[in-house]
């Protein structure tokens, strides 16, 4: 287990370092002065000079990259070119709202997704299975920002059931304003989860131990719950891990449509204001978050299912 953890953690670190290098290359690939393209047109001359000294732009390129790594590892993602606040602090102040939205979307997706997947698998080929599978691919196909706008139009503007914009005050207000964006973001994941779970259940149902259990006359309900679902649920953890990361993309749109604070809104406004350090900083923080969630999901699976870690470390 330890060998697997070490291997998986190393891989995650290498990936993050590669992403940082890729961002560094992008900054240099733009024609013109890399400092100016990194900080954007709004940066003051003093800021540009300070950044030039910090990264040592007269040094050879590999040394610049090392300094870039060094600054990021120290948590120094640069400064907001408008307010001068450290970028990391600005991002961390917006992150909780986005995380809350993602948590809301997950709670919309998980229970219906698991329910649909289990029922579809146990009635394979029946009407329920066919209808739910068409519904699943349909919600997966439609982009979340289209769903977000239609939800806003129907439930906020036409029916007036939910407030249209903002994050809300107090627990009740926050929850009320979380409903529509969470549905917009989570709807597609009902589809993903139910499909993955259905496929994985069917696979487990075909295995010998399930047939044996059936031969012993164990009730169908008990077989489905104790013998099938417990194993079949594992792949959904990987999917959930990826889902949380990918929801950051959807959150950008949900935050704009519903006027919520969060990292998506932050980066969108930063681009409009040409506040480039905020843009690169947010990309870096969200990517790290994405990689970490993937790492946690993989470790969790290895912890729950010894077969996985044995296959990988072998």
């Amino acid at each position: 287990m330890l060998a697997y953890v070490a291997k998986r953690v190393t891989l995650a670190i290498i990936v993050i370092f590669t992403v940082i290098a890729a961002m560094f290359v992008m900054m240099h690939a733009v024609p013109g002065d890399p400092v100016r393209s990194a900080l954007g047109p709004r940066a003051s001359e003093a800021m540009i000079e300070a950044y030039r000294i910090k990264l040592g732009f007269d040094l050879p390129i590999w040394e610049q990259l090392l300094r870039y790594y060094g600054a990021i590892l120290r948590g120094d993602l640069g400064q907001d070119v408008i307010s001068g606040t450290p970028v990391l602090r600005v991002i961390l102040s917006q992150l909780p709202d986005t995380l809350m939205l993602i948590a809301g979307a997950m709670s919309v997706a998980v229970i219906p997704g698991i329910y649909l997947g289990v029922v579809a698998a146990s009635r394979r080929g029946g009407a329920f299975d066919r209808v739910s599978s068409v519904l699943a691919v349909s919600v997966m196909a439609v982009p979340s920002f289209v769903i977000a706008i239609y939800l806003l139009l129907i439930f906020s503007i036409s029916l007036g059931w939910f407030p249209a914009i903002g994050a809300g005050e107090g627990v009740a207000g926050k929850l009320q304003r979380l409903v529509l964006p969470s549905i917009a973001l989570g709807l597609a994941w009902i589809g993903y989860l139910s499909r993955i779970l259905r496929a994985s259940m069917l696979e487990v149902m075909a295995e010998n131990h399930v047939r044996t259990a059936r031969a012993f006359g164990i009730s169908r309900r008990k077989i489905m719950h104790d013998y099938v679902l417990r194993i079949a649920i594992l792949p959904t953890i990987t999917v959930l891990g990826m889902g949380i990361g990918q929801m950051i993309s959807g959150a950008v749109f949900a935050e704009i449509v519903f006027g919520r604070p969060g990292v998506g809104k932050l980066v969108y406004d930063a681009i409009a204001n040409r506040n480039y350090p905020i843009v690169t900083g947010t990309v870096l923080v969200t990517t790290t978050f994405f990689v970490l969630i993937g790492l946690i999901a993989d470790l969790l699976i290895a912890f729950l299912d010894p077969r996985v870690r044995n296959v990988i470390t072998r």
Partner: protein
Amino acid sequence: MSSPAEPLAKTRRKAPKSALARLVSDPLGLAGLVLIVLTVSAALLADFALWDPAKLNPVNRFMAPTGLHWLGTDNLGRDLFSRVVHGARIALAISIGATALSLIVGLVLGILAGFGPRWLDSVLLLVMDAMNSIPTVMLALLLITYTGPSLWAVVLVVVLVNGPGYARITRTHVLALRSADFIEAERAIGARFPRIVFFHVLPNILGPLLILAAMDIPIVIGIEAGLSFLGMGVRPPTPSWGTILFDGFSYIRDSVWMVVAGGLPIVVTALGFTFLGEALRDTFDPKLAKR
């Protein structure tokens, strides 16, 4: 995976019906086909729309659908139906063009990784992993911050987002094929690398890749519309579904028709290509369908 060509050959033997007939006999395939034909004909016949998509008519702004303006008019009095059918051109051109380009990039990288030396394989895998670790919208926003919004920026984003996926599948197939007996035999009789790639590897992997590409088209349409919605894709006055939707969102309290006109075609094409992709996969690649 033993040989990727196997399931294709098997279904062919079992069902002598033509591919199209089999596709249409699946209700999902038929629905997909109808929706796509609808979108494609809208794009092809866009020039026959009654109105010029850029013609301003401020007197008639925010009109509900009428006999003359089938989907109503927008905040500048432009005809929404005409903008939607012209938007279909942009959506289809970008999604098909960018998907084709990602497919080519993915094939080349996958073949390089599969046939190339071990270190190249590892480096390519790592770079692709890194690319896939950046959330799609964040990658797009970062790139467009540097390149500025344009149609080509959207294409670049799509290639960076989807290319690695095709490369991975190509690589897996190449690794499986590389040591297959018939490739060994080819090599033994002196076939060169290009011949092996074009006559043996490509025909074996193109089928599954094309099905995946069909299923990726709605995602690409979503990326184009999404970036245009954020003001970072196709520039106005070119009509894009994403910009129509954004204008509709900005004036959502004045008129619902702009949002309807911008969103509906995205839903229709996304469903069309997804349904078709599902049906194609079930028809031609039962092995994939099991997943």
